[in-house]
């Protein structure tokens, strides 16, 4: 029993600190709301320590429904990174926008708990619970600016479409159960291996239903359609979180399901993945060219980024899978940072999010312009940044799996993406101001969050080796 608890320790810490934040919130005076943020951050750090602890004693827990292994440790660390950076970057935002802090941090922590369960869960029902927990939290977070019509609209759209997609996921689980009489991935793996295993076609159908549900979360085409509206309407720090965290969690589950016990069916689904990767990249990039709003532009960019990840996913090899894990971290660093900085620059009420508002920013605030440029350069995949190496590993895995056409399309897509990422840089550096965006000094907490992002981007971009080793461990999908 103690062993079970230790293996679920990060989740427990997250849950307890989320509840504590809610309990404390009424007793914290309105002016000291930032204390709750620091407490939540402390919870995240503690969960990180717990995560490190579970890494020392890997194994199954709670009757095989949860597994603490290098896969779950890696992904939980990633979620904690995202949660931590988001919390750091939101402390000032919540004060500025005069939003209640307690629920915000609690929801972030609970969403993180849900994602952690998705990565650690071996039983699909538990995974579903995790998915629901993280989804419900993010639905609320998307509508957190209650008095803003766009925020409400985003929340509602996300909720309705999200529930719709989740139904497909549940349907997929039902198919798995119907095929094999179990929802546990380990048991499933044993039964698939045995003679007279489940029907290949139905395995593929189950997989695809699961893919519809989770593909919605990762914004894979043709299920990406909600993304721009929600990202544009939701509060920017929330987007920083939900454009990365749930996406990574969904990819974690997809990796486990597709290349684990049901890999037989995933061969049949290969061309669909291939097509989805191409569609996702093209639909994201081509639409991004037209955007005049920074949040919307970054939303389309987020779709395109999911497309690149799907390229590695389609490659399917161990290299491809570790490239996916690696890229998710680089993507977390750059996307979270970008949205947090945009939230700050947008000023009170998030009023300034047009590209033209950034004119001449470099002259007035060289520091902010430089940080944003680094993030954009990394998103477009310029060498010495993590974005370059991440893409490089993804595309190399695709080439190694002989997906030449897919790789060519992916590279062409990154070329297109350079156009819109650089347009923002050009506006900041080469056009005459005065900048309409907020030029107020960066608060210290946001500074710290951005410093983590930028430092991470350069660290992974220049010294990837050590971290890549870690990512490679995640290609062991199921515990032995």
């Amino acid at each position: 029993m103690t062993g079970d608890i230790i293996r679920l320790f990060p989740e427990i810490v997250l849950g307890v600190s989320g509840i504590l934040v809610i309990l404390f919130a009424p007793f914290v005076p309105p002016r000291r709301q930032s204390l709750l943020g620091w407490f939540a951050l402390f919870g995240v750090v503690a969960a990180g320590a717990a995560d490190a602890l579970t890494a020392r004693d890997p194994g199954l827990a709670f009757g095989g429904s949860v597994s603490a292994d290098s896969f779950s440790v890696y992904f939980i660390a990633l979620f904690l990174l995202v949660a931590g950076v988001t919390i750091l970057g939101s402390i000032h935002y919540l004060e500025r926008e005069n939003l209640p802090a307690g629920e915000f941090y609690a929801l972030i922590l609970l969403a993180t708990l849900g994602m952690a369960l998705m990565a650690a869960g071996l039983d699909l029902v538990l995974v579903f619970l995790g998915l629901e927990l993280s989804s419900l939290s993010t639905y609320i977070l998307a509508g957190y600016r209650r008095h803003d019509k766009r925020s409400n609209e985003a929340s509602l759209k996300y909720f309705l479409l999200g529930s719709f997609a989740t139904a497909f996921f549940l349907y997929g689980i039902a198919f798995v159960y119907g095929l094999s009489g179990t929802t546990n991935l380990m048991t499933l793996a044993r039964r698939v291996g045995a003679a007279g295993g489940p029907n290949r076609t139905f395995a593929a159908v189950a997989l695809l239903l699961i893919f519809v549900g989770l593909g919605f979360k990762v914004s894979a085409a043709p299920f990406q359609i909600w993304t721009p509206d929600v990202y544009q309407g939701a509060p920017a720090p929330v987007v920083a979180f939900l454009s990365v965290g749930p996406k990574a969690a969904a990819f974690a589950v997809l990796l486990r399901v597709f290349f684990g016990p049901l890999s037989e069916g995933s061969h049949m689904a290969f061309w669909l993945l291939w097509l989805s990767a191409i569609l996702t990249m093209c639909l994201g990039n081509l639409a991004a060219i037209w955007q005049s709003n920074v949040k919307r532009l970054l939303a389309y960019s987020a779709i395109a980024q999911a497309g690149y990840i799907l390229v590695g996913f389609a490659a399917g090899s161990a290299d491809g899978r570790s490239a996916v894990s690696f890229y998710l971290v680089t993507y977390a660093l750059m996307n979270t940072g970008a949205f947090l900085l945009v939230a700050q620059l947008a000023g009170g009420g998030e009023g300034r999010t047009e590209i033209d508002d950034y004119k001449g920013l470099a002259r007035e605030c060289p520091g902010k312009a430089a940080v944003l440029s680094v993030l954009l350069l990394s998103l477009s995949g310029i060498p010495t940044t993590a974005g370059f190496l991440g893409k490089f590993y993804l595309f190399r895995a695709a080439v190694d799996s002989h997906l030449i056409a897919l790789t060519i399309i992916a590279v062409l897509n990154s070329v297109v993406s350079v156009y819109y990422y650089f347009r923002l840089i050009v506006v900041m550096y080469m056009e005459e101001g005065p900048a309409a965006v907020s030029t107020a000094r960066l608060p210290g907490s946001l500074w710290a969050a951005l410093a983590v992002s930028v430092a991470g981007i350069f660290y992974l971009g220049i010294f990837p080796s050590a971290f890549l080793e870690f990512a490679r461990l995640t290609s062991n999908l199921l515990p032995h």
Partner: protein
Amino acid sequence: MKDILLLMLFPPLAGAFLNGVFGRRYPKALVSAIACGASGLAALFALIGAWNYTRFWSPAALPLRIGTWIRAGAFRADFALYYDRLTLVMTCIVTVVAFLIHLYSRGYMEHEEGYYRFFSYMNLFLFMMLVLVTAGNYPLMFVGWEGVGLCSYLLIGFYFPKKSASDAGKKAFIVTRIGDAGFTVGVALMFWTFGTVSFHSLFPKVALMPAGWDSNALTAICLLLFLGAVGKSAQLPLYVWLPDAMEGPTPVSALIHAATMVTAGVYMVARSNVLYAHAPIALETVAIVGCITAFFAATIAICQNDLKRLLAYSTISQLGYMFLGCGAGLFATGIFHLMTHAFFKSLLFLAAGSVMHAMSGELDMRKMGGLRHKMPVTYWTFFAATLAICGIPGFSGFFSKDEILAAAYNGPLGGPWLYWLGTITAGLTAFYMFRALFMTFHGPSRVPEDLAHHVHESGSKMTGPLIVLAILSVIGGYVSIPSALGGSERFDGYLAPVFFSSEHFLRTTAAHAPSGGWSGLTLMGFSLAFALGGVFAAYWLYLKSPELPARIAERFAAPYRLLVNKYYVDQFYNWLIVRPIRVCSESFLWKRVDAGAIDGGMVEGSGAVTVALGGILRRIYSGNLRSYATWVLLGAVMWIGYILVMR
């Protein structure tokens, strides 16, 4: 001990960062305090580290692995440093000279725009140079190698609004790039041949090769690496960038283009001594190129009237000496001369800077003369450095240059003609240096009227480092008194653990036995005679009968023109390489290929198609919830349908 040497790297990096990022807002005093403090700390750490190592550690090399840098397949390059006595000597030279030049720059750059930028680059340079000399493998060394190249480019072009300065920066960058290409290919070939690029696994591997072991690959590696050194250390035929590099501020010329960066090539050859010992053809090439460059550059220096350019050619010539020493098979002599040269040549440059300061930027020696009364400190320090470079007994250059000439004569790969060409060069050196001294400081004043009243001695911020360097230039040689004079050559002895096995290997395997014959004292006598002859000729022509040089120039018009125009090498390169590339790039690559095909056809065309496509695609994002749900449903249905159809 390891940590203090590692620690040495950080102050310059931190200084470069602080001044580079925040320096614009700092007052000048703070900027210079940060920069000088950083270089001073580095010097302190280097000296303590060297003392500590020498005293308490065995002389064996000390590799220090910090972490993994690149790992790709079998290729592996770590963040690894490598300490042995050669590294320690180099770090001490680099940091001490850099510290003094930083101090000097406080005064010299006082009234310049971009004060913080200058010091930030200088500190960054120091950091990169330290990376270069402490690196434990060739790729990391190359990081420093390129880093100092970058700083050199930035500092040559420091006055970038001036076209000649920015052009000179570009020229330096591009010309050295040719050598760097060779270096990179050499390292790649090294990995391909030996499977490693790190010093502590490569050197023993090569050292164990038997004497008769014939390796064309190793010769090719060494020649390619030497091509890198030729570019960086401005040897024939890639020396053309160094004279132009004098467009940079004078402290930069002193630090980068005299004392440290340009000697990186020499250091690299000495560091790779094991490789070169097993590739005698490559090593002989080093000696020959060095010797010819020394002579060639000295002849050009004779006819230069621009003080800094004269010193630049002199630097090229002296670097040639260092390569001669290494190439003759006695690496320690090259490093010894590198050290003394760092002292006296940076002193010459700094003194020239002091003159330039007094003369409001004028560098033409024909407009100087008689400055010794107005600038006594500058004069005496310049005089000391001149005596040192000419090899007058008692001054540092005497010891190091004589060691090199002796090596050229009876080193394992030495030969009589190397010795004689080197000795003639010594005479030429004495001539042009005393010519510069006489034209600048002696004789009647030729200073234009409007400048004359302005001429003054520089402040103590500048003269202080001059005096310290002058002392070093005088006494720097006594660390290695030649055995011919009853000394024990302690410097060579100190470096013996690094070089001994290579030098011994060369001695036992050299194709031709060392040419016996004259003793050390006789050799010394010859070179001294040549040097004194040079001094006397300069005295005769420029002090005693100053009308003579013009008559000689008239008499021997053709050779004179050849020398004044520096053998037309620049024009030749321009005609052979630059012009054809430009013509081809402009009329064909730019106007036809780039503007026509790529820009017009591919970029504009594909751009237009992409944008149009995007315009259509974005219409699906209508914002309507029902249509969104329909899309999701349609997608799901199509996907399941596909599976059911395709099963």
